[in-house]
Each structure stands twice: as C-alpha cells, then as structure tokens.
C-alpha cells in the first residue's frame, strides 16, 4: 500500500479576519536552520500593510467598546486554542530550530502568558487609573484608554512566545494590531492566525503579515493611521550582509514623528520572554490617560 501523502497547509496572511495571499502574489521560502525547505509563505507588500491598517482601524472602536470582561474572555479563548494545538506549535518551533524540551516549554509559556494578560483586562485600569483629590468641588477621575492601532515588529528569535508577549498587551486595553511576524521563523505566527480566526477575536483586531521587515516597517512607521509603533523585533534581524534586510531603526522612529506616533524602541538584545513581564508596563505603553472633571453641587 502506497504511503499517504500529507496535505500541506498554504501559509497566508491574516487581514480583517480573512486569509488573503499577498495582493502582490509573491511568496518566499521558509527554511529550517539547516536549509531544509519548510513552506512557501506569503511575501506581504506595502499594499498589504495599508490594507491591514484599514482593517485594524475599522475594528478598533468595536474592540475598545467591548467590555473589559469580554476582552478577557476572548484572550482566554485564544489560550485555550493554543493549548489545543500544542503539538502543532511544538512541531513548528522545532522545525525552526528549537529542541523538543525548549519548544514545549515555549508553547506552555505562551498559553500562560495569554492567561496572564486575559486576567489583566478588567484590572489594569484600577491599577493605572485614579480618583484625583483636586482642590475644589469636583469629581475628578483618570482612566487609561487604548491609543488605537498599534503596529508591531514581532521578535525574531522567540517566534511564538515573543509574538504573543508583544501582541497580547496591546489587545488588553482595546487596541487593534498589525504585526509583522518573525522574518525567518513565521510558521508559528501563521498557525496563530488560525487560532485567532476561531477564538472569537473580531476580524481586524489582529492582522498578521509575513515578509521582509525592511520592506514593510517604513510603511507602518510613517502611516498616519498608526498610533503606536513597537520596534522590539528589529533586534536580531538577519544582518545587513543579507541584501535587502538592512533596517534603519532611527529612520523608522523619525518617520513615526510625523504622526506623533508613540514608539517603543528596539532593545539592545531580544528580551527573555520566558520571564514574567514586569507589571502592566507593556499594557500602558499603548494607553493614554483620560481625565474627566465634573462639578459637585446640589
């Protein structure tokens, strides 16, 4: 009896809740560290970036308008479905070079990280907000609000845990996200889109692009409908020797200034995402404080 031929998955983009191929029709080869061919992934274009920003902007009021409790349930649901695909994620992390133990550890930590952030949705505002004792007969309250659309260059080495660790905190407050997956290790991100599509995340809340950071990041950085720019994933990008992957972080930060876009600069080394995050800093990076006044009187 002939050996069964497995059905291979087509790796696509995730924009507005749909799975388009790149509008450019381009793909790139995803290979293992030893050069083994793994998949053809969609090579997103600048037009895909703009489409993704439109989708994120359209989805943002609805996501921010959902109750904090509801956002927490949705984030928890993502964790549930990552857990259910544990084997698939472990296989992909291993294909990208992790050993079995490390891959399993990373997937477990990913689930736990999602749960951790799910629990923050209806708590961080109590920690970050305040009722302010102003010198006058006024009720005065300050609350964090999402800034809007956050563009994220996902971490390069930590292809799943790193991705979730930068996307989830942006979602907690009600931001929507356009994220560029790890350039050389995009497969866990592609699988995550399949989780997102089936875990009650409204279309457009998370949009995932695969491709070249050098090509996509400038369009994201200078986009006037992008409110936040997370450059964490610039750290550890394939080097300048690899033609076309040279990324100028300073130019990206400078481009963001035109829209007064909030920028989280690239760290000197990729963070150790296995460590529990320090408090709500990453949530608050993508929030503005709103202060409301009202007189007291009879």
């Amino acid at each position: 009896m002939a050996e069964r031929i497995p059905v291979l998955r087509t790796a696509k983009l995730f924009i507005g809740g749909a799975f388009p191929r790149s509008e450019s029709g381009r793909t790139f080869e995803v290979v293992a560290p030893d050069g083994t061919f793994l998949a053809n992934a969609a090579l997103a274009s600048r037009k895909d970036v703009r489409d993704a920003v439109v989708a994120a902007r359209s989805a943002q009021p609805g996501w921010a308008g959902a109750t904090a409790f509801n956002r927490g349930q949705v984030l928890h649901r993502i964790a549930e479905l990552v857990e259910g695909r544990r084997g698939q994620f472990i296989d992909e992390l291993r294909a990208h070079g992790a050993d079995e133990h490390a891959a399993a550890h990373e997937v477990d930590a990913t689930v736990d990280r999602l749960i951790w952030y799910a629990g923050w949705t209806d708590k961080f505002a109590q920690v970050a907000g305040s009722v302010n004792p102003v010198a006058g007969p006024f009720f005065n309250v300050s609350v964090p609000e999402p800034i809007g659309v956050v563009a994220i260059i996902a971490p390069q080495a930590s292809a799943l845990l790193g991705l979730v660790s930068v996307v989830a905190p942006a979602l907690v407050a009600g931001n929507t996200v356009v994220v560029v997956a790890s350039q050389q290790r995009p497969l866990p991100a592609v699988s995550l889109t399949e989780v997102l599509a089936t875990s009650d995340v409204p279309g457009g809340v998370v949009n995932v692009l695969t491709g070249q950071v050098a090509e996509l990041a400038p369009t994201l950085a200078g986009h006037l409908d992008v409110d936040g720019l997370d450059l964490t994933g610039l750290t550890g990008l394939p080097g300048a020797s690899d033609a076309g992957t040279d990324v100028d972080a300073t130019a990206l930060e400078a481009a963001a200034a035109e829209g007064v876009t909030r920028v989280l600069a690239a760290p000197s080394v990729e963070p150790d995402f296995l460590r529990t995050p320090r408090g709500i800093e990453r949530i608050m990076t993508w929030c503005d404080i709103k202060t409301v006044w009202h007189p007291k009187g009879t």
Partner: protein
Amino acid sequence: MSRYPIELGAPAWDYAPAPESRAVARLDVGMQGRLHIGGEWVDAADGATFATHSPATEEHLADVALAGAVDVDRAVAAARAALPAWSALPGAERAKHLFRLARMLQERAREFAVLETLDNGKPIRETRDFDVPTAAAHLFHHAGWADKLDWAGLGASPRPVGVVGAIIPWNFPLLMLAWKVAPALASGSTIVLKPAETTPLTALRFAELCQQADLPPGVVNVITGAGATGAALVRHPGIDKVAFTGSTAVGKDIQRALAGTGRRLTLELGGKAANIVFADAAIDQAIEGIVDGIFFNQGHVCCAGSRLLVEEPVHDLVVERLKRRLATLRLGDPLDKNTDVGAINSAAQLGRITALADAGEAEGAERWSPDCALPERGHWFPPTIFTGVSQSSRIAQEEIFGPVLSVLTFRTPEEAVTKANNTPYGLSAGIWTEKGSRILWLADRLRAGVVWANTFNRFDPSSPFGGMKDSGFGREGGRQGLLAYLEAASNDATGAGGGIDG
C-alpha cells in the same frame, strides 16, 4: 470686520481704573542679561542678548542673555554634575527643598504675578488668582512625592530619569515651569529649563528664588533664548529626557531629532477642543464656561474650547447670550484688576490670529466682536465669534491660539462626537448637559486627554493633564505625570522600558 454695538440689555458699568503697582516687579534690579547655570549668574559665552517687551505697551522691559550652543553645553554639564548628590539626597530632604520653593513662591506671589503680567500681557486677575497660586500648588504637591516614590507605581526605589531638558511656552510661563521643575526635582532629577523668548522674566526670577532658597547649585538651570537655543538643548547628548510644551510642529521636530537616541520624551502640543452644548444644558452656566473656555488668557491656551458645538435648537439662544456676555468683557491694561482680556503676547502671534480670522471670513463664516476700543499701542485682538462655520473651514480645523471662537451645530449625540473628534488634535473637550448618562457616554467617546463636563479649563496638580493623537503623549500632574520622570529600579528587557511615558 462687522462690529456693532449690542443692545441686549447688557449692563454698561463704568469702572474706575484700578491698576496694580508695577514697582513690585523690580524690573530695575535682578539678574537681567544673564543665564542661571550651576547656581551662578553668567553672561552668554558670546555676550549676546535679546530684548523682551511688554505686549500691552510695546515698552522695553529688559535685555536677557541669548544662550548659544556653548551655554547649553555648560548648563547641561552643570545639571549633570549636580545629579549624583541631588538624587542621593534622602527624599524627605528633597521634599523640604521643594516645600521651601513653594512657600517662597507664595510669599513673593504678588511680585511674580505683576512680573508675569508685564512680560506676558495677561490680566493681573489671572496671574494673581491662577498662574502663580497654581504654580505654587504644583511645587507643594510634588514636594510630598519626593519621599514617596515607592508608591509611584514602578516598584520599590525607582530611579530618577536623570538630566531633564525642558522647553516651555509663553502662554503660562511660570506655571509651565512649575509643571516641569516640580516632578523633575521630586524624582531626584536635575533640569535645564528654557523659557519662551517672549516671556523669560519669571523663569529668571524663579532661578533667583532657587538661590534664595539654597537649592544646591546646578539642580535648576535657566537658559534664555529662542528656537535655536531650544533646538540645541533637546539635541544635546547629555540630556536624558526632554519635556516639551508647545506647538505640534515643533513637537514633531523634537520627536524626529530624538529618533534613535533612546532618550525619553513627553510632548504637550496643540489642540482644537470641542465644547459641546446640549439643549438641556444649564445655559447660563454654559455661557460662563464657553467664555472661560476660549477667552481665558486671550485664548492662548492649548486646551482652549475653540470649537463650540451647539445642539441646533439652542444655537440662536446660545449665540445671543454669548454676545451679551462678551459685551461685558473688559479689554485693556493687563495690570488693571478689572481687566478680563489682556494683550496678545506678540506681534507675530497677533499676525497669525489676524490671518486665520480673515481666512474664516473669506471662507464665508459670519464674524462678530463686541464694540470695544482697542488700545493704540501694544498687540490687541478683540474677543471674536464666528457663526455659520463649516467643518472644513480653517478656523474649525487649525489652532488659532487667540480669542476666536468658531460656532458649529449638531443634531444628535453621535454627530457631536463625530464632529468633536474630526481633528488631528486630542487635548481636551467640554460637555454641557444636565443628563448624567449622556456625559459619561460622551466622555468615553471623545478622543481627548482631558474632558470637562459642566465646567472648563480646570487644572490641579493632582490631576493628570495631557493629550491624545497629535496633541502629544505623556501626562503632567498626579501620580501618572510623575512617571515621566522615573525609571524602574530593574529595567529588565521584558518590560516596556524607555521611550514613551504613560
């Protein structure tokens, strides 16, 4: 301009002149022509100076030093040198320094109020009752933070951000100084402050007060100058954080200049606030709020309620009562205690206001001002209302930063929100209605850092202030504002770290 006397029963009171004495400002003494660096009064390295004038009379008030790159260098070095000892001082001792500054400012409140009014052109009623007391309150509030930083929200023993470069505007010179100096000093940071070129005097007088209060040399440095001085300061590699209040255009320039440096930044930029009046509002209270919203400080307020959105059925009523109220405003000598509207701060600003108002008229809006005589000397612009303003008109879109109100209408709460948010700015907004649920519904949807409901233009040291969108990022005031001057003790890589201040 169509101007006509108004006959709506407005009382025509006569007031005898009641000018505050200007002698207390001691313009003839003090540290004119010099910079305050490392606790010393020094000339600019190249000896350059520039003049500051009274906007109300155009008289020459003083010559002040024009700091160049060499002076910026010296000031940053002085702040850097002072940092280790200042940040190592027990918080309780830093607190006492700040309390002392607050108290001494209160003691010399009259002097600062008169000096501010002379240099800025704003009414003495405002400097006396708002600018100076609020500045003192800001110092007093933050004094109490200096030994309580563990409760700021960054965990135990947070570190000061370091050397702060602060650029402040001319609309609230002393108050903006306090907004930067107070949290910086409380955190254990040191500061180099550049006041605006048209209003340098109260900052220099404050430096004198720091000396009088025995503040360690170099903790507060004041360098006077214009745009080039500020540009050199924010680009100086010895600065750890830039705190800027001013125009959106300059804010973008600064953000661009800091790209890739890892230095921290807070920006408090322009605004085009909507002040939304519903038909059920307490109209007389709303009128007072509208007037305060746009004519306070001659409209030189980044959070001014410059776009009035009125629910259609009460448009005519509101405009009529507004005109009646404006007819009672007294414009003139800023030192007169009865004056409501003072001088425009500079000829350049008057030019911008005039050009935008002319553009409003050219675009078809109807212009109205009360019949008030403008003084012959100085820079003046009458309180002005535009009705029939379209959403796309320049006077509905661009920040005028003057006593000019654009009136638009809406029919539904949804339309009010859409129109209010239809601007790149997001600093403040106002809501006038007696319906509580509608206030909270709107407050959730208005994209503005500060929302005033049934009040306007209120400020308090414990209340975080700052913008969304193109109005900038970071907050000033309260625990949230203090965070911009602190760093967590262990800045591990998984935290957000650097960059933007929440």
